[in-house]
């Protein structure tokens, strides 16, 4: 869809913004209707090498809507720092203007109005057109495409093909190197099969054998790094898979493999690449998370670039710490990060970076990609395209505490299981369904497509529930990024509570109410949960109720037909006044 001037008048009226003035300087941000393909492609090319970076695509090979968070809260020492920016604080930090194409992609602001007008984001056929354009501009032999992982999981088509559809998509895009996290939830055997099908190299320095009876005990499971030559330069790429895979996801999938940050060995490989392999540039391809990688840059010396992932942050400008340049490219295929590097005399002399929005209305689809997507979806089309119901309000995923699509899932679970409390995980992947649009089975899978989808129903005492909430809060709000796991708070159905994020561990959560009554520490509650391992803490597991979450949710929406979820959070944030606080402030 091309945006006409007429379109712009409509949106300008909707948003109450004035007519665009004549651009005074070439660099002035353009209003969204003025942006053309030239602006998206526009880049101040530099040096001899281009690294293209993608992360956290979560198997979205088709374009989608993805609303960024309106609440993104952290420990007070991290508030308003890259990784914990949203809305106005995001725009201010990066010196951006609202109502631009970038602001539509990077923030939740005016999302619904802009989404209706300006369309979906990402999709491999649009990404490929962009990648092809850059390869043509720079010379394909000077360009590489690196993927920070969380690519194989997140949609129905990914789950139903055991990840294979997405590997085909990566091969089509031309991914050169990748690392993993949710990839591992297909299990060790399947991971190895998929790596066989993958044209890219899978590298990780932080996954080692943990089984003292196996041949690979204390040995690396994957190559720790790879060296690629581009533009006459030798570039060393060290892999860092998600350090807490075995804690955040069921251990059964990676039994015998040990993860961890392993900064000691990371330093060893950086030094080895420099001294023995004589590379000209050291890159860490990482799934640590944006705030963790800022800490990695403080502790590990000699890294030129960290290409981060996991926390889904769009970062229009690099963050530089101790000379290490850190970038992260959002999520769900919304962006391709372009990093041009000037390498001279075996050293990095300079760089230029741009986070390029994959605006599917502006970047034409590559026909080959469209055909591939069609082929990959065709066996599942009839199931995935089923319309389950219509939503009145916009269903979204991202927020630190509460999101509307998760509330719909919790409502479905409580309705089906007749439980007092429902836990839905605070993952950061999913989809956005605009108010007034229909909800399809594909949308439900976008929120729930995991290899351990069961909803378990069991009993927990009030004290255990309180303890669990504190434990989860400490993973999300720890003052030390190295002790965080990079997700959001679990979403609770049937419960309201107050939280002081800055309070000490174990003292953050107060005033927990279940069904409108104060939580009783000694009372036994009927609890349902999925996507975690809470069921192992409970007693009296009700096996007869156990069912996959996507079936439970789909059945509920079919019955309701019209879904109307309120945007009211069940969590009261006591030490901040708004969802996107500024650095060092309570407010925005």
């Amino acid at each position, binding site marked *: 869809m091309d945006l006409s001037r007429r379109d712009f008048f409509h949106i300008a009226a909707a948003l109450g913004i004035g007519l665009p003035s004549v651009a005074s300087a070439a660099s002035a941000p353009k209003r969204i209707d003025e942006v053309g393909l030239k602006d998206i492609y526009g880049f101040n090319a530099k040096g001899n090498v281009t690294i293209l970076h993608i992360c956290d695509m979560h198997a979205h090979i088709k374009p989608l809507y993805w609303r960024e968070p309106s609440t993104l809260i952290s420990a007070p020492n991290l508030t308003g720092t890259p990784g914990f920016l949203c809305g106005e604080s995001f725009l201010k930090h990066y010196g951006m203007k609202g109502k631009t194409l970038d602001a539509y992609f990077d923030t939740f602001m005016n999302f619904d109005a802009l989404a209706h007008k300006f369309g979906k984001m990402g999709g491999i056929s649009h990404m490929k057109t962009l990648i092809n354009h850059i390869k043509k501009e720079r010379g394909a032999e000077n360009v590489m495409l690196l993927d920070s992982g969380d690519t194989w999981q997140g949609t129905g088509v990914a789950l139903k093909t055991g990840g294979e559809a997405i590997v085909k998509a990566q091969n089509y895009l031309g991914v050169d190197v990748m690392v993993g*996290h*949710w990839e591992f939830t297909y299990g060790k055997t399947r991971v190895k099969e998929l790596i066989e099908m993958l044209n890219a190299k899978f590298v990780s320095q932080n996954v080692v054998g*943990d089984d003292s009876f196996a041949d690979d005990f204390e040995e690396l499971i994957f190559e720790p790094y790879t060296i690629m030559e581009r533009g006459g330069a030798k570039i060393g790429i060290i892999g860092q898979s*998600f*350090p*807490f*895979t*075995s*804690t*955040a*996801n*069921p*251990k059964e999938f990676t039994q015998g493999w*040990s*993860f*961890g*940050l392993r900064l*000691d060995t990371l330093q060893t490989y950086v030094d080895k690449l420099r001294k023995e392999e004589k590379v000209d540039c050291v890159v860490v391809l990482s799934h640590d998370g944006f705030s963790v990688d800022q800490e990695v840059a403080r502790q590990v010396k000699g890294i030129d670039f960290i290409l981060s992932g996991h926390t889904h942050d769009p970062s229009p400008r690099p963050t530089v710490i101790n000379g290490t340049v850190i970038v992260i490219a959002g999520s769900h295929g919304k962006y391709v990060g372009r990093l041009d590097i000037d390498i001279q005399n075996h050293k990095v002399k300079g760089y230029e970076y741009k986070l390029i929005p994959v605006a599917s209305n502006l970047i034409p689809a590559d026909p080959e990609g469209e055909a591939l997507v069609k082929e990959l979806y065709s066996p599942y089309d009839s199931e995935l395209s089923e319309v389950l119901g219509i939503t009145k309000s916009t269903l979204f995923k991202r927020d630190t505490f509460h999101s509307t699509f998760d509330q719909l899932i919790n409502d479905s679970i409580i309705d089906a299981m007749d439980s007092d409390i429902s836990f839905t*995980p*605070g*993952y950061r992947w999913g989809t956005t369904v605009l108010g007034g649009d229909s909800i399809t089975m594909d949308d439900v899978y976008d929120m729930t497509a995991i290899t351990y989808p069961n909803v378990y129903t069991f009993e927990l*005492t009030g*004290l*255990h529930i*309180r*303890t*669990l909430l*504190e*434990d*989860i809060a*400490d*993973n*999300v709000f*720890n003052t030390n990024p*190295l*002790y965080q*796991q*990079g*997700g*959001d*708070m*679990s979403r609770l159905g049937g419960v309201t509570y107050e939280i002081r994020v800055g309070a000490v*561990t*174990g*003292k953050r959560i107060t005033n927990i109410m279940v069904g409108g009554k104060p939580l009783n*520490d000694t009372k036994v509650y009927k609890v349902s949960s999925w*996507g*975690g*391992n*809470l069921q*192992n*803490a*409970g*007693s009296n597991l009700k096996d007869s109720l156990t069912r996959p979450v996507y079936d439970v949710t789909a059945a509920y929406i079919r019955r309701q037909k019209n879904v109307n979820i309120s945007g009211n959070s069940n969590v009261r944030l006591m030490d901040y006044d708004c969802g996107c606080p500024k650095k060092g402030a309570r407010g925005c």
Partner: protein
Amino acid sequence: MERRSFLKGFGAAAACAIALPHVASAAEEKKSASPMAMNFETAVAAITGGKALTPSAKVKMEAPEIAENGAVVPVKVTVESPMSDKDYVKAIHILASKNGNVRCANIYLTPANGEAFFGTRIKLGGTQDVVAIAEMSDGTFLTAKQNVKVTIGGCG
């Protein structure tokens, strides 16, 4: 359900333990009946005989930031030392500061060991500091510590 069996639930099936709840830790202290049970300060004093502990970069401890499995947390301790007859490490002690039984391992060495290194796996009842103490041949005690988080996780 007792706290112990609650923790065991995680340990056995999820293979990871939950952080010690602040509400339950007081009850735990009252109940502890192990003959080995002593608090951290008493355990350190039993090792050092009351001498001061000196934090030192010569003691290098490797432990995960977040335990993959609270029941078997890998800990490695290396102490920089010539291990000569005149200057060697007499012992390496590993302590879990908040476990019911604080002392996890006591390793006695001689110069014949050649290298002051020990690795083991310890059980942690919750998030806490793991502490290594090196008893040197000159009668001093060097130390290093690291906080290890024990969590149910599950919110990736």
